[in-house]
């Protein structure tokens, strides 16, 4: 409020000018044509005004001790909006009615000037570029000569009135609609305005005689506001048109304030888009926590995300006095706990407290470091498409008063804006999760494609020789048989071609089975198998002839330990694994001409059966042991000797064995190199 100016008519010393406002006369000071708020009821002065002349004694009694009437008698001149008291001294005697007329004109002029000046002052304040809502209310209160004011805003989400601005110290800055307060009257239908004698009990308002209260409809959503204007004067009532003027002005101003807040939120939302990079959610949330803390003017903001099982909430970002986004330590809420943050997630509803000391006295859970003790709080669920991804919470809303941070209370706009922001944030988190899932699937698909591509390469390489054999052999046989002299040598040539076709046919069939990717990946037909009949012979019968011709290598089978032995597994898959070992043994026995040996025995109390495949070819280095079964791994010596391959075979064989509840082991590195195929001897659950 503006400081009252000193007001007593010192310029002429013999006249007093009053401006009439509503039913009161306000004394104007001489120099500035302002008023010191010394007001006098029109009703109480009616008799004096009617008398037209009056002695100083009577005037002193009527106006009280604050005004000194030096002359003995005064003439009283009153108009619609002014009152003039002028001493009946020499000047008035000399110039008579003419002097009185001049004085009355001057008085009217001063009242008009007073009104113009106060109006101008009001306009200047209202249209100041950076005026706050408080300055706005202050300007109206001053203009209408009120002594105090307060503006409360009703939060429809919480059912609580919070004090937006006030000219006096409030003992409590929020009032619940459940409480016994005259504020609640504005919530009733039909309430528009009221003017009545003031009876509230606040000390600071103890001298107030009249309260003018009006309901405001603020913002686009019609948030309820309550403006109260207090006066020391009895029956100092605002006219309806003035109420309307104030209401229109404040509602417009509030729209501007909301618009600014909305723009600030839009900036935060814009930053969502600008700062968000798919795959970098953590860093993004750090910056969001910081932005929210600043934009909502709260002392802390934290973000918690739920795990996939929705069993816990993990702190992922926090901004307070101590940290700028990255949490100082890890913190996890169990979602089975009955704590406010967990409840927000479970209920998918916003929660709040205006009094954390009462509502959450235990103050369990994660506590941010704030300048003030925990006072108020909003927890908002991060909801997208009905799914809750986590909780964002803000604590201790503040305003800056005279450069000092003071705790204030959340407004409707905070809830609306936070809801909108959390919705956007949840959408981005959803995108991030989809991004992660897509990336994982893409990775898996790429791995599968890569694996299939490698498969295809090996497959194509493996089948090209048999195909060549099939395509060329008939022509060779035909040409040989069409020779006139069908010698024994020619016949042998034909038989040899037929043998080759058989070997290659068997091999091609086996390759086709081996490289049936879908079968390898999905097929599982577990049964009890004979080691010799179902696993070893089918492979050896096909491969032996091939190895003999291609590498001059034989297979030496130690059948003694293999007779009548049974294992449990998928025949085709075990054939693939065993063939891989035999095929590799053939390739790596380069130029040794020493046979590949196959033997077997039970292992581990009969729960497993070991089939051991050994060769005397290229050794495996100790440092290759670990990576030997990795996809695409090739041994140093294999590369050195130019032995073709892709490093898929052993990797695939190992996978098959693990998925078959068995194992594929490298049991000797050199002379011989031995691989052990450990096959379950019994179905799972029947082990000893």
């Amino acid at each position, binding site marked *: 409020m503006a400081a009252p100016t000193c007001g007593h008519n010192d310029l002429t010393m013999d006249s007093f000018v009053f401006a009439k406002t509503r039913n009161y006369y306000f004394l104007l000071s001489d120099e500035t044509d302002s008023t010191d708020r010394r007001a006098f009821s029109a009703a109480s002065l009616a008799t004096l005004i009617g008398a037209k002349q009056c002695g100083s004694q009577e005037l002193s009694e009527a106006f009280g001790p604050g005004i000194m009437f030096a002359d003995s008698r005064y003439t009283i001149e009153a108009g619609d909006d002014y009152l003039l008291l002028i001493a009946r001294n020499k000047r008035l005697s000399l110039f008579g009615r003419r002097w009185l007329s001049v004085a009355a004109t001057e008085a009217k002029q001063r009242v008009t000037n007073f009104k113009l000046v106060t109006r101008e002052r009001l306009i200047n304040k209202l249209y100041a570029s950076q005026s706050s809502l408080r300055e706005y209310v202050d300007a109206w209160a001053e203009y209408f000569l009120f002594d105090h004011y307060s503006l409360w805003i009703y939060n429809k989400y919480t059912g609580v009135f919070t004090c937006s601005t006030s000219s006096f110290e409030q003992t409590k800055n929020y009032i619940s609609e459940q409480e016994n307060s005259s504020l609640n009257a504005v919530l009733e239908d039909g309430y528009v305005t009221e003017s009545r004698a003031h009876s509230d009990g606040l000390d600071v308002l103890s001298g107030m005689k009249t309260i003018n209260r009006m309901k405001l409809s603020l913002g686009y959503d019609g948030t309820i506001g309550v403006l109260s204007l207090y006066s020391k004067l009895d029956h100092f009532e605002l006219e309806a048109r003035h109420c309307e003027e104030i209401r229109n002005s404040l509602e417009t101003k509030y729209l501007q304030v909301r618009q600014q807040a909305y723009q600030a939120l839009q900036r935060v939302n814009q930053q969502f888009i600008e700062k968000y990079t798919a795959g970098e959610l953590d860093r993004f949330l750090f910056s969001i926590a910081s932005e929210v803390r600043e934009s909502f003017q709260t002392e802390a903001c934290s973000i918690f995300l739920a795990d996939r099982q929705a069993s816990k909430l993990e702190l992922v970002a926090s901004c307070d006095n101590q940290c700028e986004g990255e949490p100082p330590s890890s913190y996890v809420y169990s979602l089975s706990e009955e704590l406010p943050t967990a409840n927000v997630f479970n209920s998918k509803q916003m929660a709040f407290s205006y009094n954390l000391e009462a509502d959450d006295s235990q103050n369990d859970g994660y506590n941010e470091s704030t300048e003030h003790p925990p006072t108020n709080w909003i927890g908002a669920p991060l909801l997208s498409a009905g799914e809750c991804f986590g909780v964002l919470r803000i604590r201790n809303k503040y305003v800056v008063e005279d450069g000092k941070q003071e705790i204030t209370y959340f407004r409707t706009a905070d809830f609306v804006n936070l809801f909108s922001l959390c919705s956007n944030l949840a959408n981005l988190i959803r995108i991030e999760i989809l991004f992660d899932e897509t990336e994982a699937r893409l990775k898996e698909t790429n791995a599968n494609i890569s694996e299939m591509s490698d498969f295809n390469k090996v497959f194509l390489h493996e089948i090209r020789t048999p195909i*060549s*054999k099939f395509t060329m052999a008939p*022509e060779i046989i035909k040409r040989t048989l069409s020779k006139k002299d069908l010698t024994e040598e020619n016949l042998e040539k034909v038989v040899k071609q037929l043998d080759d076709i058989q070997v290659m046919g068997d091999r091609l069939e086996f390759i086709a089975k081996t490289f049936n990717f879908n079968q390898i990946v999905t097929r599982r037909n577990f049964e009890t198998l004979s080691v010799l009949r179902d696993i070893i012979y089918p492979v050896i019968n096909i491969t032996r002839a091939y190895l003999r011709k291609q590498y001059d290598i034989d297979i030496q089978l130690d059948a003694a330990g293999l007779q009548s032995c049974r294992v449990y597994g998928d025949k085709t898959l075990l054939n693939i694994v065993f063939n891989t070992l035999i095929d590799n043994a053939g390739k790596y026995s380069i130029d040794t001409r020493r046979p590949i040996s196959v033997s077997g025995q039970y292992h581990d109390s009969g729960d497993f059966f070991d089939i051991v495949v050994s060769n005397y070819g290229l050794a495996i280095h100790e440092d290759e042991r670990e990576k030997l079964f990795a996809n695409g791994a090739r041994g140093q010596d294999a590369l050195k000797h130019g032995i073709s391959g892709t490093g898929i075979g052993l990797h695939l064989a190992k996978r098959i064995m693990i998925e078959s509840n068995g194992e594929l082991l490298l049991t000797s590195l050199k002379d011989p190199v031995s691989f052990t195929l450990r096959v379950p001897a019994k179905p799972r659950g029947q082990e000893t």
Partner: protein
Amino acid sequence: MSNVLLIEDDRFLIDDLTTFIEYEGHTCSVYTGPDEVIENLDALGKFDAIILDIMMTRGRYLQDEDPNFETGELLFQRIREKYPNQAMLIISAKNFADMQIDFTAHKNVFTISKPFDSTASELIKHLPKE
């Protein structure tokens, strides 16, 4: 007709290819690995055409060579270095696009992918007639 050298280690193919080559009236010698090639490098000039398989084991002499190169590629470089205009037919079960050497950039060099047709006609047609 031509004097042809077949460098191939796949024993299932050697006889068949030799048969078709000889049916056309060419003479055909066979080296079954890189060792023979390197040991007889000086004698390769006598062949009118060399058929070279790409994927073979390294043998004794090429074990320390760049592993990114297939055995046939290494042999190609050595033969080409000594006989830049030698007619060569490169055969492979591996895609030529996956190799280190662009054979199409070399004069008098032909590439033939396995498998062959019933008479290995792609191979035979590129053999010099005289």
